[in-house]
């Protein structure tokens, strides 16, 4: 039978649901098409590879609502739905489609794991019943639907307890309550957060060790464990926020088999077909365990397990969903053995989460059951220490040389605070406490519940830094095997990095690269997937082909999201089309770029100069593309050039020219392009002088940062006085021009400059462009001004000694167009512009960087768009208590959605945010101080946020109300232009759905 499959994606990136679903969704689409299915894809996230027009037969970039889903089903009449590769969003949507009778009405069946199974896993009460039937131990718990029911539970089980709201992402609204008061607060918050007003309250088993099992099962009942993983933090910290090792480190075979058998019983009894994740808690010394959670779908952990082992879970899970059997599928890693086996590793994998705390002053860094990490870094090594240190540096964790500099001066109580909270800095604080003699390992074990084996690992690292002479052959070799960089060793030994490197060469200590092959070398494999280590023979045989390395973007952070993975992957494809061997270096396990089938060679290594140059040396590769990996690639420019590598299309000098204020303005002056008054300053006094000349309001910010980190808009001198103590120099000071921001992503070869689209920002200048709502083509900007932008762009593209993707930000004020910023790299909006125009921007940029002339490649004229495209940022404010949901110069959003429409004002935006399902209506709009024109209900009346859709508020004093609103799933708008825009959407009607593939034809959109 011909199968037409609707694949539901995961929507915008939010904390708890990140790039892993682009990876799984892309794999699923590929597997379905390989099996001859027709694929219809539904995902609102335009920054993904999976929404590339070539990935599916029809791609719908639409809001992830029931209404839109039904419209797509009406239009496409799929025979099947695949809902297990799009995270919680896809599962919830599939359940909603089923409950609304839409699946039945159209005779659509679900591929793979059934809805009943999904309900058994997701509905806490059903899950509990199922586990009881199987005799699987669960912590004492109770499902509550009201606060009264909490009384009953507390009377029998007491506190501490854990609150887990049903059907929420990344544990939203949940937490551990230590006291009865906290329990009541948390439960009421959890009930609100749950779309079905249901929470599980359970006795806390904090202190147990936590493990995850990634299980696969086929229709025939064959089960395998792809991988198990162990959290360094005991139960209590969300697994997404913990350092994790794969495979499990402290499980004996007896205990491992106990959990494995339990996992098999659970998936078999649930009837899972495809992938499933099971979390267990194990007593630190006794053979007792509890089942914590079962996720009958692919997940963040399955992406990690896939990358840690090489076993492509999502791809195989999709084939199983189509009815294939594990023992019929070839293991794509060995290409000779079958997929029905359990991968075995001859290395250790570490995952380190990345947090947005440094971006937001005053955020609560404490970790708990609610996930706060935005992304993760993965590394492999032959020792725990090596894998951990590589993952740490891949995550950008400061090690000076082992733990952050401030911990050297901090007193013991400050360090203990980090350990006990615990915060994201817990392990480093443990290192500092041991190193500085403030605490013994046994005290730390007692206080943290971290098992002795992991404490030994930390102790081993401390011991290395205290070695009398690290520069002897055995000590140096040992330090390298434990993951220390030449830079760390130099700092410890008080010599230069070059000294260490030289000494290493003298002793013959060189990095080697081993293959990830799923089988510990038992079978021959040709997987082009490698990791670096310091022991043994290298398995890399460099080819003599022309080759280029692409520097990936590393972990997802606010300001550097999945967009850069999109660009990196497209750069790889563009190189391959030119017959060039593409080498991908990246360390983010969630992404498509770290799928070993993408590049010719994949290296999962930290993106530091040392690790990257080692790979380049091993490959004999001289040419590097840094312009697609966001700020990560840019940060390596100087060092790569100094080491003799050739940055295709770019140079460290041109990057400096654009960042160094004086040189930047001199450049613009030279080509007669207007810029706003600004200077670079090196001291506090210099800053006061400069502000004196420039005047208020002004913007102060550091160079080379991601997401507007450390950026301030100052209205008057008291503002400046207030921030002075926190500043580090040099800084850039610019006049703040409150005009309209516009942005261009173009490609240039130095001669031909092509501008595919101009993006117009709705909010006034000052809101970080990553957090702004943008419209293509511009609505408010005149034709003349748009032509002027084209002209300026062309001037810049021709004057810069740069080839590739270029991003320019403008501000339009009083008929003058000023250039704010030029980024000689692919920007966050490149995938969006590509999706909207249907033009392969990254491919063209790569060709330009390789030295091709664009003249014959790019169109002469910009394409007329058939309608409008609106990009909307999505925030994860709910996950970050203590962060004011107020837009400003510091970026806060984690993802974005795209909407096509024949009119510039689009109504659907209110449904986008996965944290709210409410659609805006006038009586549901609340306004704060000074915003009377925007709403019906003033904020100072008794507002029940349960029934509110939007809050308009911007004054600082209303922060508590904004935070309360966010907790209740209310959309907060804090900028006037955006408020006006949103208000205009109320009266618009829903737009018909249309596949992306049809957007790029010349047809007009139907109104």
């Amino acid at each position, binding site marked *: 039978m011909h199968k037409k499959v609707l694949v539901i994606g995961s929507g915008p990136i939010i904390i708890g649901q990140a790039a892993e679903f682009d990876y799984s969704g892309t794999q699923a689409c590929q597997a379905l098409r390989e099996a001859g299915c027709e694929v219809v894809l539904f995902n609102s996230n335009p920054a993904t590879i999976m929404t590339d027009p070539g990935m599916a037969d029809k791609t719908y970039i639409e809001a992830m609502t029931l209404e839109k889903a039904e419209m797509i089903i009406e239009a496409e009449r799929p025979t099947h739905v695949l809902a297990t590769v799009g995270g919680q969003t896809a599962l919830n949507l599939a359940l909603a489609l089923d409950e609304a009778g839409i699946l039945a009405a159209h005779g659509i069946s679900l591929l793979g794991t059934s809805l009943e199974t999904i309900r058994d896993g997701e509905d806490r009460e059903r899950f509990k019943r199922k586990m009881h039937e199987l005799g699987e131990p669960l912590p004492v718990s109770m499902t509550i639907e009201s606060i009264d029911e909490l009384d009953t539970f507390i009377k029998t089980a007491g506190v501490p307890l854990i609150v887990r709201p049903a059907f929420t992402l990344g544990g939203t609204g949940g937490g551990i309550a230590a006291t009865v008061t906290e329990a009541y607060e948390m439960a009421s918050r959890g009930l609100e957060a749950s779309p079905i007003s249901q929470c599980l309250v359970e006795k806390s088993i904090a202190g147990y060790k936590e493990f995850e099992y990634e299980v696969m099962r086929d229709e*025939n*009942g*064959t*089960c*395998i464990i792809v991988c198990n993983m162990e959290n360094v933090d005991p139960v209590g910290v969300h697994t997404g926020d913990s350092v994790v090792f794969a*495979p499990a*480190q*402290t*499980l*004996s*075979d*007896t205990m*491992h*088999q106990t959990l*494995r*058998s339990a996992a*098999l019983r659970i998936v078999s009894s649930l009837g899972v077909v495809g992938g499933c994740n099971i979390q267990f808690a194990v007593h630190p010394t006794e053979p007792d365990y509890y089942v914590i959670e079962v996720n009958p779908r692919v997940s963040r952990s399955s992406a990690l397990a896939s990358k840690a082992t090489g076993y492509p879970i999502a791809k195989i899970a999709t084939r199983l969903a189509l009815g294939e*059997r*594990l*023992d019929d599928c070839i293991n794509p890693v060995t290409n*000779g*053995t*079958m997929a*029905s*086996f*359990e*991968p*075995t*590793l*001859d*290395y*250790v994998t570490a995952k380190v989460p990345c947090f947005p705390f440094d971006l937001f002053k005053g955020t609560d860094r404490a970790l708990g059951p609610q996930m706060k990490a935005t992304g993760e870094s993965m590394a492999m090594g*032959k*020792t*725990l220490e090596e894998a951990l240190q590589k993952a740490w540096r891949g995550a950008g964790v400061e090690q000076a040389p082992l733990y952050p500099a401030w911990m050297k001066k901090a007193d013991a109580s400050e360090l203990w605070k980090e350990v006990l909270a615990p915060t994201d800095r817990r392990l480093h604080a443990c290192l500092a406490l041991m190193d500085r003699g403030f605490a013994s*390992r046994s005290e730390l074990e007692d206080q943290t519940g971290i098992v*002795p*084996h992991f*404490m*030994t690992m930390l102790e081993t690292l401390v011991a290395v830094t205290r070695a009398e002479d690290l520069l002897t052959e055995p000590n140096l070799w040992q330090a390298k095997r434990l993951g220390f960089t030449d830079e760390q060793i130099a700092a410890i030994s008080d010599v230069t990095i070059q000294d260490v490197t030289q000494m290493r060469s003298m002793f013959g200590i060189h990095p080697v690269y*081993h293959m990830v092959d799923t*089988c*510990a*070398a*038992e*079978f*021959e494999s040709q997987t082009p997937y490698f990791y670096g280590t310091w*022991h*043994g*023979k290298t398995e890399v045989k460099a080819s003599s082909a022309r080759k280029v390395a692409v520097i990936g973007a590393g972990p997802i952070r606010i300001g550097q999201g999945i967009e850069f993975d999109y660009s990196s992957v497209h750069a790889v494809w563009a190189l391959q089309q030119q017959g060039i061997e593409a080498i991908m270096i990246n360390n983010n396990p969630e992404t498509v770029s770290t799928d070993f089938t993408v590049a010719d060679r994949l290296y999962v290594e930290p993106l530091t100069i040392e690790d990257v140059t080692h790979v380049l040396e091993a490959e004999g590769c001289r040419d590097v593309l840094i312009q697609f990996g966001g700020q990560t690639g840019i940060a390596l420019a100087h060092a790569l050039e100094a080491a003799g590598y050739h940055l295709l299309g770019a140079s460290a000098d041109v990057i400096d020219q654009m960042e160094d204020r004086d040189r930047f303005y001199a450049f613009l002056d030279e080509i007669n392009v207007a810029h706003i008054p600004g200077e670079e300053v090196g001291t506090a006094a210099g800053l006061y002088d400069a502000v004196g000349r420039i005047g208020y309001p002004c913007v102060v910010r550091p160079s080379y940062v991601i997401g507007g980190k450390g950026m301030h808009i100052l209205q008057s001198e008291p503002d400046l006085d207030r921030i002075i103590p926190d500043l580090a120099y040099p800084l850039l000071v610019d006049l703040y021009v409150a005009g309209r921001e516009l942005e261009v992503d173009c490609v240039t070869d130095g001669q031909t400059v092509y501008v595919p689209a101009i993006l117009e920002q709705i909010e006034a200048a000052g809101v970080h462009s990553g957090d702004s709502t943008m419209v293509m083509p511009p609505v408010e900007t005149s034709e003349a001004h748009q032509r002027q932008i084209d002209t300026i762009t062309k001037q810049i593209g021709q004057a810069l000694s740069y080839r590739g993707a270029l991003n320019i930000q403008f501000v339009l004020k009083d008929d003058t167009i000023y250039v704010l910023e030029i980024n000689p790299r692919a920007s966050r909006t490149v995938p969006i512009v590509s999706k909207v125009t249907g033009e392969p921007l990254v491919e063209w940029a790569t060709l330009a960087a390789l030295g091709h002339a664009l003249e014959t490649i790019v169109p002469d004229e910009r394409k007329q768009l058939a309608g409008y495209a609106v990009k909307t940022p999505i925030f994860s404010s709910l996950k970050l208590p203590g962060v004011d949901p107020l837009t400003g110069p510091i970026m806060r959003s984690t993802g974005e959605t795209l909407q096509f429409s024949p009119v510039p004002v689009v109504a659907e935006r209110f449904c986008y945010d996965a944290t709210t399902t409410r659609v805006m209506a006038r009586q549901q709009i609340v306004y704060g101080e000074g915003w009377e024109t925007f709403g019906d209900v003033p904020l100072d009346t008794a507002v029940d946020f349960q029934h509110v859709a939007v809050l308009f508020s911007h004054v600082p004093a209303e922060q508590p109300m904004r935070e309360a609103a966010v907790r209740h799933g209310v959309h907060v708008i804090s900028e006037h232009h955006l408020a006006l825009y949103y208000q205009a959407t109320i009266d618009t009607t829903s737009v018909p759905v249309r596949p992306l593939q049809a957007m790029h034809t010349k047809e007009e959109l139907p109104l």
Partner: protein
Amino acid sequence: MNGTLTLQNGMTFDGTWETSARLGKGEVVFFTGMTGYQEVLTDPSYAGQVIVFTYPLIGQYGLEAEASESTDIQVAGVIVQTLARNGQSSDLRNWLEQAGIPVLSGIDTRTLVHMLRQEGDQWGLLSTSANGHVEGDFLQITETVTTAKPVQLGTSEKGHIVCLDFGVKSSMVEAMLARGYAVTTLPYDTPAAEIHRLKPDGVLVSNGPGDPRDLMDRIETVREVALRYPTLGICMGHQLISLSFGASIEKQTYGHRGSNHPVRNVQTGEVWMTSQNHGYVVTRDSLERTPLELLFENVNDSSVEGTKHPEVPILTAQFHPEASPGPKEAQALFDQFDEMIQQGVNVYA
């Protein structure tokens, strides 16, 4: 101190000598499981072998009271990348030290495995001086692992099983005890008459080290008891039963040793992940010459993983249903044996 592994093919691998034992010699084989080092080290089937652990950290979870498969460490030597200290008292290193086992660490085990995979399992010498004779054989190996005299465990309300001990793992005996049988473990060379005298309800032909073709003098007995009592043969036991019915045995290049080997039941299509440890295999074609039918095959290389006799209750498995270490789903085979005995009691009583 430094030490060296010298292989039959002349290759050497240098590492750190971890214990005070000074010399070790054995067939060098690799084990790919990531857990289960205690079970492996005490498994009599590994007697006379030098075990290369492919997982780079060994010893990380310490030792367990109940996990050993025999009373002693059986292996001739251990090769690891890193001998981990787990920060607890139950330290693997101390145990290996006390048992006098030579241990070489800091070895590039991946390169070693590559080599073994290509050139096949071979003899190796572990020493601190790199001198000595590398070659060896397994001719008398069974003598060193079999029980010295009959040992009976459990009561026999349900039935009595005789285990012919070619180097039996204790979990195999425990699997039958757990199913309510009494088990008498007999020396491997116990004559058939002696077995008949014990009036067993079932016979377990155990696993064990070495080349089954060195035990040709036992196959007549094996065949005789197998045809008379419900019989389960595991690993060496499977090979001996197959041999006794006329099948042939060949040496594999590098054997199956690990916890992730997929086995398909050719009758039901069911697939199990199994624990395996063997360097010899029953030639698939040769089964045609025997009354035995293929029951289990390896999913990856289609090799013979088990057989059954169409008329009499004989069941054989190349893999290890008792696991330990490894996945437990194949324990179902003991249930099948149990059932066979219960029916067999009626048939043969």
